[in-house]
């Protein structure tokens, strides 16, 4: 199930041997891939939004590197540009970031090697975003335990590079791109999310979580904006867990 065609470097053989090679393989796997294309196009939108909101070039690239989660960057820029207080903006960002906790919880045990590397594990946690989480679920189980952490760090570095490249391009030249092209680029993100979730779903619980998550979020967005994603995760996830347990 892990061999969806992505062409070129993405289909390079699995890494063997040294952690250094695993890092490079992780980087190459993600730099020429569907998620890279999706990230690049979403970052283009973020760069353009930052410029329109009156932020400096340095602010936009600084955020891309330190936040490493596009929806959160967009929320922060949007809030500050609308004149929200810093505390208000931070609250909106943190509500959007709650999703990263369960994602980190499920990725970290997969990265555990024979030795504990606390500093590298903190960096690995920083590199948790939807794209790296999806790719991690897809690729990591097939790798030797000790090569997973460097592979994930390589993938995270690739995503960071794409995000900065997209932000820079969006900030400097997105004005020349027709709206229909920007819309098509933005449209790739939800399609990529749902298709890769389906590609990695292994059980009835996974499928139930996808279906429930997709159908609950619009309802909760209207009923409880702000905590809608959190509610979707907790309610949809718990129901999916119960459905998956039942025999």
């Amino acid at each position, binding site marked *: 199930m892990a061999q969806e065609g992505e062409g070129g470097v993405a289909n390079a053989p699995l890494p063997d041997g040294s952690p250094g090679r695993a890092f490079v393989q992780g980087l190459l796997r993600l730099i020429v891939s569907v998620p890279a294309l*999706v990230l690049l196009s979403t970052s283009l939108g973020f760069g353009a939004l930052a410029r329109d909101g009156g932020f400096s070039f340095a602010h936009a690239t600084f955020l891309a590197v*330190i936040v490493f989660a596009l929806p959160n960057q967009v929320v922060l820029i949007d809030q500050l540009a609308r004149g929200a207080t810093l505390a208000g903006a931070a609250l909106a960002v943190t509500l959007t970031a709650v999703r990263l*906790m369960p994602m980190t919880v499920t990725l*970290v045990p997969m990265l555990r090697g024979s030795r504990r590397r606390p500093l590298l594990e903190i960096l690995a946690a*920083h590199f948790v975003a939807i794209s790296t989480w999806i790719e991690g679920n897809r690729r990591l189980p097939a790798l030797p335990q000790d090569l997973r952490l460097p592979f994930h760090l390589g993938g995270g570095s690739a995503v960071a590079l794409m995000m900065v490249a997209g932000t820079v391009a969006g900030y400097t030249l997105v004005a020349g791109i027709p709206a229909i092209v920007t*819309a098509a680029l933005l449209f790739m993100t939800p399609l990529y999310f749902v298709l890769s979730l389906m590609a990695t779903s292994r059980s009835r619980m996974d499928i139930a979580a996808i279906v429930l998550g997709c159908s609950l979020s619009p309802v909760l967005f209207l009923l409880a904006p702000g905590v809608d994603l959190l509610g*979707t995760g907790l*309610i949809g996830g*718990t129901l999916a867990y119960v459905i998956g347990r039942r025999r």
Partner: protein
Amino acid sequence: MAFLDDGTGGFLSLFLAGFVATEMWRWLGLAVGSRLDVAGEPFQWVRAVATALVAGMVTRMLIFPAGALAGISMGVRIGAFAGGLAVYFLARRNLVAGVVGGAALLVAAQLISR
């Protein structure tokens, strides 16, 4: 904007409201994940919650879009999304075909409906 007057040209404010507000959830996830058994029931439940959260973002982006995507009608968005899913399965579960095909359908439908 007010955040620019923090003595660091806005960088300290962005660090607090961007990095700290986001990163604390990753640190919490790291602390919990390091103690969790992959085969255990709590891990399975958290995995279901994470999957539902990511799936929830899909329909939110599709039905309540931001930026240029908001300029495309709901019917075209949903139709192209369903088309992308169909292309994915017709191309024997090919991710590139599904994502690029869906985006191409969106452009085509938008140009025709204008």
